[in-house]
């Protein structure tokens, strides 16, 4: 399953829900799959994607979608514990798990050597979890997550495409301003 195809699937089911994109190709592909005001692209702050989404979920009634990555989430595993403590029903964490640090040379991540992020989420008290490895099962899981109370934690095993897409031509300041205006106007 390619991340870009999976991202297009997410956008088809997302409606107006805010989507937080992890740094690098996840945000770039989110932009190319369907730029919208409620895409919150991140550019740095590795590890904080699902923390940002948690802050959103605690402050809006909308379903909030985090498109995180295995390497990034490993940098901030504690936020899974905080999600388990807060248990926001409107949060959907979707982890693109390519079992590597794709941006730094493709070194294997800890999910390639035994760490099971779904089990981590379960042990933090999150019961709505699954791991999927094709578009069909992703669509089924994500469709449920968008329609049933969470928090949801979905690990989607993906493959890296042969080439990266162009970097999304967006600025952090404008991303936040544009995103936030959909809530305060």
């Amino acid at each position, binding site marked *: 399953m390619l991340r870009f195809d999976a991202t297009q699937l997410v956008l088809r089911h997302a409606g107006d829900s805010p989507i937080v994109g992890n740094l690098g190709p996840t945000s770039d592909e989110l932009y190319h799959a369907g730029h919208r005001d409620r895409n919150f692209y991140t550019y740095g702050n590795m590890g*904080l994607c699902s923390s940002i989404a948690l*802050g959103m979920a605690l*402050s809006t009634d909308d379903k909030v979608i985090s498109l995180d990555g295995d390497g990034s989430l490993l940098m901030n595993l504690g936020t899974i514990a905080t999600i388990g403590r807060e248990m926001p029903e409107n949060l959907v964490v979707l982890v693109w798990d390519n079992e590597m640090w794709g941006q730094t040379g493709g070194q294997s991540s800890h999910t390639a050597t035994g760490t099971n992020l779904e089990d981590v989420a379960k042990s933090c008290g999150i019961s709505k979890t699954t791991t999927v490895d094709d578009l069909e099962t992703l669509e089924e899981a994500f469709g449920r997550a968008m329609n049933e109370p969470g928090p949801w934690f979905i690990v989607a095993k993906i493959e890296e495409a042969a080439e990266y897409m162009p970097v999304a031509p967006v600025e952090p300041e404008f991303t936040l301003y544009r995103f936030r205006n959909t809530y305060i106007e």
Partner: protein
Amino acid sequence: MPWAETIVDTLKKWDTSLIAYVPDISIDRVTSIIDADPFFHLVSCTREEEAVGVAVGSYAVGRNAAVFMQSSGFGNSINGIASLCLPSRTPIPIFMNLRGQVGEFNIAQVAMGRNTKPILDLFGIAHYTIESEDRMDTLLDGVMKLCHAHRNPVAICMTPMLHGGKIA
């Protein structure tokens, strides 16, 4: 008014109701009041950088947020502040207990505590040190106004002269 109540009143005046924090004994007086007040949602985080992310997410959907930590945790939060708050311009007030000051008993707290304000200066983040309750309400109100006008984080550093410090 006691310092802790002044902080709570200021947060309410500025409609800042999501508080992400890592516990600290010296400023527990204020976070305990926040925890007991239904106006606020106090989010206990595992690490200070995580608290920064939670606060930014809250602000992004239109709810003002603040972060509480101690200065040693400021070291843990720098990447989040530098690569998220500053480039995206988010007005997050950071309330911190400033360690390494008069009365410090722990050598491990001195380097980060004493370098916290120089690091804030390097990032161009405005910071204010509060050592007394005198005119604290006026100062805090002005700090919040600056924070939102500049749409950048500000740091409010509280020393043992204000809160009495940690009791060993």
